[in-house]
C-alpha cells in the first residue's frame, strides 16, 4: 500500500470519526452520511467474511470436488438456506419454515447441554468448590466464599416465585436484591469504562492524524465542520428573520 493511500486513509478515517462525533452537537447531514456508510460497510464486512469463510470453502469447493457424498452433504443445507429466500414471496413463504425449523431445532438441541454445562453446572461448581477445602482457606477467603454462596442463594430465592416472599423469605430475597444491585452497578461501570476506552482510542487516532505527516487531517476537518455549523446557523437565523 503506497504512502499516498495511507494518507488518504487517515483523512477518511479522521473525517468519518469527526462526522459521527458531530452528532454530539446536533443531528446533521455529515452524521447521517457516516451513519449510513457504517450500515453499508458493516454489511459489506460480514458479506465478505461469509463469502470467503463459508460460501467458498463450505459450499463452492465441496460442490466442485467431484465427490457425490460431499456434494450431497452440501446440497441439503443449501436447499434449506435457499428456502429462507421464499420469505420474499408471500404465497410460498411457508417454505422458509424448513430452513428456520432446522436452525431452531439444531440451536435448541445444542443450547440445552451448552447452557447446562457453562451457565448452570459451572456456576454451581464455582460456588461450592471453595467449600471442598474450606478449612485450609484464610479467614478472608472463607468470608469471600461464604459471601458468594449466600449471595447466590439469596439472588436465586429472589427469582423463585413458587413461594410467597414474606417473613424470613422476604428478608432473604431483599438481601438478594442488594447483590443484584452491586452486579448491576459493576456491569454499568464496566460498560461505561469500556466505551470510554474506545473513546480514548478514537481521540488518540485523531491526535495522530492531526500531525504534519498526515497534512493535519483532523485539524482541517474540524475547521471545515465548524465553518459548516457556523454558516448553517447564520443562514438559518437570516431565513428566520426574512420569514418574520
Amino acid at each position, binding site marked *: 500500500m503506497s504512502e499516498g493511500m495511507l494518507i488518504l486513509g487517515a483523512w477518511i478515517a479522521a473525517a468519518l470519526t469527526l462526522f459521527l462525533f458531530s452528532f454530539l452537537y446536533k443531528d446533521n447531514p455529515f452524521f447521517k452520511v457516516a451513519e449510513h456508510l457504517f450500515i453499508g460497510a458493516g454489511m459489506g464486512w460480514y458479506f465478505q467474511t461469509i463469502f470467503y469463510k463459508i460460501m467458498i470453502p463450505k459450499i463452492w469447493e465441496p460442490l466442485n470436488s467431484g465427490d457425490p457424498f460431499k456434494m450431497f452433504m452440501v446440497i441439503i443445507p443449501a436447499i434449506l438456506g435457499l428456502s*429462507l429466500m421464499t420469505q420474499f414471496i408471500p404465497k410460498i413463504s411457508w417454505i422458509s419454515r424448513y430452513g428456520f425449523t432446522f436452525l431452531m431445532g439444531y440451536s435448541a*438441541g445444542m443450547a440445552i447441554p451448552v447452557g447446562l454445562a457453562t451457565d448452570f453446572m459451572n456456576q454451581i461448581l464455582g460456588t461450592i468448590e471453595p467449600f471442598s477445602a474450606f478449612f485450609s482457606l484464610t479467614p478472608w477467603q472463607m468470608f469471600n466464599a461464604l459471601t458468594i454462596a449466600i449471595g447466590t442463594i439469596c439472588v436465586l430465592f429472589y427469582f423463585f416465585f413458587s413461594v410467597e416472599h414474606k417473613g424470613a423469605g422476604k428478608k432473604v430475597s431483599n438481601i438478594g436484591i442488594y447483590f443484584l444491585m452491586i452486579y448491576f*452497578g459493576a456491569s454499568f461501570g464496566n460498560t461505561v469504562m469500556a466505551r470510554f476506552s474506545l473513546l480514548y482510542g478514537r481521540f488518540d487516532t485523531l491526535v495522530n492524524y492531526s500531525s504534519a505527516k498526515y497534512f493535519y487531517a483532523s485539524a482541517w476537518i474540524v475547521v471545515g465542520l465548524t465553518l459548516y455549523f457556523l454558516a448553517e446557523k447564520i443562514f438559518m437565523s437570516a431565513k428566520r428573520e426574512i420569514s418574520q
Partner: protein
Amino acid sequence: MKLFKKNIPLAIVLVFGLVSLASYYVPNRMSEDYLEVMNAWENIVSAFGFFLGLISLFYAHYMKIRKKADGWGYSLFVYIGFLMMVIPAIISHGKQLNPDASLTWLGWAFRYLYNPLSATMFSILAFYIISTAYRSFRIKSLQAFVLFVAAFVLILGRIPVGQMIWDWALGFTKVTAGEAIDWIIGVPSTAGKRGIMIGVAIGAVVTSLKIIFGIERQYMGKD
C-alpha cells in the same frame, strides 16, 4: 397441505433438536461426526439467513430511493459503504494482509473505513450512557445507593484521578482502589451474576425444550 406447512417443519425441529441433544451426551465417533456436519450445515443455512437480511435491507433502501422518501439521498451511502468493503475484498481475495505483512485493499478498507466507523459509533454511547444515567437515575432508596456506589467505585477507581481521591480519602485503610474493584467484581458482583446466570440457564433449557417439542412455535409465523 397442513402436512407440508406445519407437521413436517415441526418434525424437523423435533428430530434435529433431539438428535443434537443426544449426540452431545453420547461419546461416540458417529455423534462427533454428526455434530461436525450439523455445525457446517448450520453455518451454511445461517449464511443464507444473512443474505435474507442483506436483501431485505437493500430492498428497504431501494424503495426509499425510488419513492424519493425523506432523506433518500443518504440511502445511497448504504450501497456505497457496502461496495467500499466488498470490492476491496474481491481484489484481495478476502485477505487483510499481504505475505510481507503490508495491508491489502481489504485491510486498508477495514482499518480506515469500517474500524473508525464502528469504534466511534460505540464510543459515542459513552456520552449517552452517562447523560441518560444522570437524567434518569435518582438515589431514592438504599438499594439504588448500593448500585450507585458499585458503579462509582468501578468508574472512578479505574482512572488516575479517582485513585488519587481514593488514596486521599481512604488511604488509611491500606486498601487500594484496584483491590476494592477486584473485590467488588470477584465477590458480591459474582454472587449476583451467578444467580442470574443459573436462572438464565434454566430458562434457556426450558425454552429449548418447548421449541423442540413444538409448544413454542412463534418462529413459524402465522398461517
